[in-house]
């Protein structure tokens, strides 16, 4: 089997509200979300035989299993980095397509704003891998220590090569906040910004401003994946996985891919795009809306380039004034607000929003949104999905 097109469907989704303090542990939020996603699908924890988590998630599989009273798990796996959300959905799709499990729950829970963490994962106890140590050695002693700084280094070179002014990056956050302002679940409900607000936003690491970066949040999300055959008997209109892929290349690092010939692109995302379009048998022109990784706003135009929605170096022009990327435009992006305008849960809200678009339940609903693309992991190992309403 070299293709998982139409071998899996997303049949249940759930998302907590985004807040600055959930007042709950991440494990509590996870369980709440899983129960709601199963209710949405018309399933119970007894049906679940697979789990997929993000590697660094504070809710370990065994704690989730015991908390939810799931007694029969035959598959559990995980994915890492910013690439996790689409890759987790892909892993679940592979799980049901091969039959190692029938109903797989994918979850992500983050107390990113409050840092309220009462169930620490064994993986986040401060131990660095050898490869992380190698990276840290050559960056930290020089004060290169924040994700904002790591990303800004790539973006400066991109600006240099394509003659971009950093003010032009303001249209993506502006549009994301417009979309987030329509979404009652968002941290920024009824709080849109104007382009001028972006210009006034504080410089954090030049050439980038505060509003170029995600908004820390406490939130959790879950989705349920099964086969298209099983999906027919469930409550919701199935959302089919038409394309799914991951990519890692020579000299890929998480946000610091500085050591390859060109750094002014996201080649991993380009490869993901080629693969998911080929698998789904569609082209960028067929896509009705996109949910791109906007953890770092300037990576959005770069993703539009890599995924073939415009030519290299033209992504910023594509986003200029926001008309092509906002609701009503030719390619509305991040319609729930995304990481910039809804809240940061490492991209899981992007997958959930793609499902809502296809179901027709988004708060920024695109007409006939039958084909939606999700991209995860801009600036490092990447993954992506093409989801569709028809198999």
């Amino acid at each position, binding site marked *: 089997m070299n293709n998982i097109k139409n071998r899996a469907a997303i049949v249940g989704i759930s998302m907590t509200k985004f807040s600055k303090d959930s007042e709950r542990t991440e494990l509590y939020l996870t369980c709440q979300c899983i129960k709601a996603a199963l209710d949405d699908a018309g399933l119970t924890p007894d049906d679940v035989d697979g789990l997929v988590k993000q590697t660094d998630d504070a809710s370990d599989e065994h704690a989730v299993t015991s908390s939810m009273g799931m007694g029969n798990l035959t598959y559990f796996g995980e994915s890492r980095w910013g690439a996790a959300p689409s890759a987790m959905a892909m892993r679940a799709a592979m799980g049901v397509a091969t039959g190692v499990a029938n109903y797989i729950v994918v979850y992500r829970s983050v107390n990113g704003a409050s840092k309220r963490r009462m169930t620490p994962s064994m993986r986040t106890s*401060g131990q660095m891998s050898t490869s992380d*140590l190698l990276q840290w050695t050559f960056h930290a002693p*020089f004060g290169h220590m924040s994700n904002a700084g790591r990303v800004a280094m790539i973006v400066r*070179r991109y600006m240099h090569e394509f003659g971009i002014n950093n003010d032009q990056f303001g249209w993506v956050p502006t549009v994301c906040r417009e979309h987030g302002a329509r979404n009652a679940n968002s941290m920024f409900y009824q709080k849109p910004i104007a382009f001028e607000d972006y210009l006034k936003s504080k410089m954090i*690491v030049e050439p980038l401003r505060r509003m170029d970066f995600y908004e820390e949040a406490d939130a959790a999300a879950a989705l349920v994946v099964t086969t298209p055959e099983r999906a027919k008997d469930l409550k919701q209109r199935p959302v089919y996985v038409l394309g799914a892929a991951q990519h890692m290349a020579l000299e890929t690092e998480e946000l610091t891919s500085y050591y390859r010939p060109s750094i002014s692109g996201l080649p991993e995302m380009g490869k993901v795009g080629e693969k998911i379009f080929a698998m789904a048998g569609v082209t960028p022109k067929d896509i009705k809306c996109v949910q791109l990784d906007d953890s770092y706003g300037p990576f959005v135009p770069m993703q539009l380039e890599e995924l073939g929605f415009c030519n290299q170096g033209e992504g910023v022009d594509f986003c200029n004034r926001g008309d092509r990327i906002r609701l009503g435009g030719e390619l509305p992006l991040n319609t729930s607000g995304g990481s910039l305008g809804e809240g940061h849960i490492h991209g899981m809200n992007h997958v959930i929003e793609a499902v809502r678009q296809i179901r027709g339940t988004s708060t920024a609903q695109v007409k006939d949104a039958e084909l939606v693309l999700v991209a995860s992991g801009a600036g490092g190992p990447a993954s992506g999905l093409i989801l569709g309403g028809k198999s």
Partner: protein
Amino acid sequence: MSMVYDTEHPVPIPPIIWDNMGYWEGINRHELVFQRCKECGTWRHPPRPVCPKCRSFEKEWTPSTGKGAVYSWVTYQESPHPGFKAPYSVVLLEMEEGVRLVSNMVDIKPEEISIGMPVEVVFEDIAEGLTLPKFRKVG
């Protein structure tokens, strides 16, 4: 990546492990060295156990000319660590050998840095047993 804030030292100490030891030994004797494959001659940085071109494990820590140019740069307006006083710049340099490395510039204001600026290495003794390679504008 996990955040480890080493605030006991003036700057976060580079964790020295077997794969990068030769680099820091060179820096401590004020010599900038990079790994070079003994089989095919390919320079590489950051250090790795194997040559990505020919997969040989045989390597030599080979002196660099210490000369290069600014490939990209950023200016931190907020400091993530008490050892660094904002605003300060971090540069990505491309060395004559073709490898890149992250460092800081000395004797220059952030706004005077530009892409393509030629630089050469200088050594900054930070504390007992801790030296860092920094760069200054040439020409």
